[in-house]
């Protein structure tokens, strides 16, 4: 088997689809473009599953470690003999797992969109963008070097921008797309500087070499990067923190999370794909990729831990008060990614120490399934009621039984109720946090209780509480293509936890024995159950208890409803401070100095030509006069000067 060909096909198929649909789709095969994209991606998905299967279960282990395989690699830009930018595909446990997740979720979203986006005028464009996104995300996870990753990272940002702004007739969608792009772009600046710092000192861009060089305390590169320091912090820490800022931007970590809720302006399946399962975990993936270096620098890792934990808590609190169901899910995503982040932060490298790493990846894996399921379920609901607001919903369980059941499974999974997928991964995260950092552990425990609460608040508000009056004719639960992904994902959300994950992906590659400690699990599960019970009491039937609770919290509730004024702070900083103190002087400089310089030079030219225009009088005698004096001058010159 020529595996390098097959593995190259995985990202190339979506790329080809993108080009095909992007160039010709709208004009020639708008209506079947969805089918084309789905089949191409289905093939890509099959390939990645089979490759991942082969890799995990049939490839050779050296000392119990799965070896990294680089099936494709070529030099793309050769700057100097020592420095080149390569393009390649790397296959290791991490990227194999991501391949499966991305292609699978993307496939589900493709299928779901067949029904959801049906009748859109720019159907082909939508699928072209989806394909572009899938391609860039695959390229991101399969990058062999940090620069290649950066390029795909930006591509992912662009396709996210395009998809959020898909309904570009809506001003709010345009604003959201711009916001997402600018915020992540701002974070990417940090990423780029981080890349430059790391690769400057390590003198390589390649992940493998980078890790080898920077984790060897004897190497010249390690000494160079730790010797340099800025503001009392070593260059290594700076580099890692800046790289983490890039990751935090994409993964919507506090304080760069503000774009994620607004990104819900995009079509709902897009939110399921990009803003729940794949792109937002790119930051986690990035940290995981460079994890061996992060472990070496406790300061950077501490930053990761606390940013993750704080984001998890903050997002969970905000999620409790939002009324737009997609925004609830968006904050929930942010919260879960916070879990993954701090799980990485509390982890060590190798053996039992590396539990956090493994748990984080496990949670990434399971979260992808149940969160995309939640989003697709929400999509189905929105498709039916044509509204995002909870107030317009209620009692939908009778109208959409399949959505109801699968949504319930997903809610149970995210709340961490055994034996659903989320239970296993969350358990391991909590265990890891418990052993490493008690503060973080209690934050996590509280947050998982909150998670259960707000998820069931959402669930009851949609499917129970009250009765919605659907307009005369409605199209029921949706097409078959919308139900199938829900069912598949529902099943997976149920069983994904039983994947022997600890055998496959660990920080050092050696299989890890984990066991579920029932006694330990009691507390988080109890927290979740309490959360669910509160939600049942407040939201299952129509009552005004929830309003009472809200008023009991008073100002805190209001602050949470307003998302703790983070957006307002940003607006204040950008509009009041940056605009006034940087923007205006720059604008003034631009208008009065730069423009004026140009205007003046133009005016001078015009004035000069206006004046010398007279010389071009068209009067032959004038010309004769110039000619005469010219000849006279020239002859004088030649006779007296050059003789």
């Amino acid at each position, binding site marked *: 088997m020529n595996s390098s060909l097959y593995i190259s096909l995985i990202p190339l198929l979506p790329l080809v689809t993108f080009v095909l649909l992007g160039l010709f789709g709208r004009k020639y095969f708008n209506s079947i473009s969805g089918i084309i994209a789905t089949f191409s991606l289905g093939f890509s998905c099959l390939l990645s599953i089979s490759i991942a299967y082969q890799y995990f279960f049939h490839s050779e282990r050296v000392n119990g470690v799965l070896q990294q395989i680089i099936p494709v690699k070529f030099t793309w830009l050769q700057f100097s003999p020592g420095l080149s930018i390569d393009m390649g595909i790397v296959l290791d446990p991490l990227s194999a797992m991501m391949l499966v997740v991305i292609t699978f979720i993307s496939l589900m979203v493709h299928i779901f969109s067949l029904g959801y986006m049906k009748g859109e005028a720019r159907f082909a464009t939508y699928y072209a963008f989806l394909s572009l996104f899938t391609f860039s995300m695959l390229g991101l996870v399969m990058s062999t070097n940090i620069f290649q990753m950066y390029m795909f990272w930006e591509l992912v940002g662009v396709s996210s921008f395009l998809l959020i702004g898909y309904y570009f007739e809506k001003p709010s969608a345009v604003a959201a797309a711009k916001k997402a792009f600018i915020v992540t772009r701002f974070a990417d600046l940090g990423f780029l500087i981080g890349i430059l710092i790391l690769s400057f000192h390590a003198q390589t861009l390649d992940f493998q070499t980078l890790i080898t060089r920077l984790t060897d305390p004897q190497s010249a590169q390690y000494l160079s990067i730790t010797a340099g320091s800025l503001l009392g912090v070593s260059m290594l820490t700076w580099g890692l923190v800046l790289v983490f800022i890039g990751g935090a931007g994409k993964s919507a970590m506090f304080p760069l999370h503000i774009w994620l809720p607004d990104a819900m302006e995009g079509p709902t399946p897009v939110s399921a794909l990009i803003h729940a399962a794949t792109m937002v975990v790119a930051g986690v993936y990035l940290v995981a990729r460079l994890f061996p270096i992060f472990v070496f620098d406790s300061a950077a890792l501490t930053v990761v831990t606390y940013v993750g934990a704080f984001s998890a808590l903050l997002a969970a609190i905000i999620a409790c008060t939002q009324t737009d169901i997609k925004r609830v899910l968006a904050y929930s995503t942010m919260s879960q990614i916070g879990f993954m982040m701090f799980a990485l932060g509390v982890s060590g490298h190798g053996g039992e120490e590396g539990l956090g790493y493994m748990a984080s990846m496990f949670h990434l894996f399971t979260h992808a399934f149940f969160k995309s399921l939640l989003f697709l379920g929400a999509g189905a609901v929105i498709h039916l009621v044509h509204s995002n607001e909870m107030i317009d919903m209620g009692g939908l369980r009778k109208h959409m039984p399949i959505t109801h059941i699968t949504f319930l499974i997903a809610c149970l999974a995210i709340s961490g109720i055994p034996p659903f997928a989320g239970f296993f991964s969350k358990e391991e995260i909590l265990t890891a946090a418990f052993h490493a950092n008690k503060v973080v552990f209690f934050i996590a425990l509280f947050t998982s209780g909150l998670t259960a609460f707000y998820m069931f608040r959402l669930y009851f508000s949609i499917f129970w509480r009250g009765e919605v009056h659907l307009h005369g004719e409605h199209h029921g639960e949706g097409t078959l293509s919308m139900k199938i992904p829900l069912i598949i994902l529902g099943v997976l959300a149920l069983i994904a936890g039983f994947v022997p994950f600890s055998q496959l992906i660990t920080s050092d590659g050696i299989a890890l024995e984990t066991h579920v400690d029932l006694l330990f699990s009691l507390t988080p599960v109890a927290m979740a159950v309490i959360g669910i019970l509160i939600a049942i009491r407040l939201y299952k039937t129509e009552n005004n208890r929830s309003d009472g609770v809200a008023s009991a919290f008073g100002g805190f509730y209001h602050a949470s409803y307003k998302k703790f004024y983070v957006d307002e702070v940003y607006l204040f900083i950008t509009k009041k401070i940056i605009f006034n103190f940087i923007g205006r002087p720059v604008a003034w400089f631009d208008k009065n100095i730069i423009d004026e310089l140009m205007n003046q030079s133009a005016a001078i030219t015009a004035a000069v030509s206006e004046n010398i*225009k007279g010389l*071009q*009088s*068209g*009067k*032959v*005698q004038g010309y*004769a*006069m110039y000619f*005469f004096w010219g000849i006279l001058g020239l002859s004088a010159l030649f006779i007296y000067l050059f003789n």
Partner: protein
Amino acid sequence: MNGIPLTHILFVSTALFFIGMYGFFTRRNMITILMSVELILNSVNINFVAFNTYLYPQNLDGIFFTIFIVTIAASEAAVAIAIIINLYRSLHSVDVDETGELKF
């Protein structure tokens, strides 16, 4: 004839040349400009003849040039007058200052 130095003849031709020049600068009527040009050409002719007779009596080249210049002057005058007449027909003027259609 030998009593007159060459420079005196050249004085005449130079003066005639600059008289023609003056006419060329000041006249506005195209026909008078043409006359000035004829004067200039004649001054050149005088030069050729004078140089030939005074400096290279064994040769005839100056004479030939004079003859050719006279011929060319004749054809030039013919074409110029044709142009002037044509211009007069379309503009009803032979003033050089009014024929500025092609300027700028």
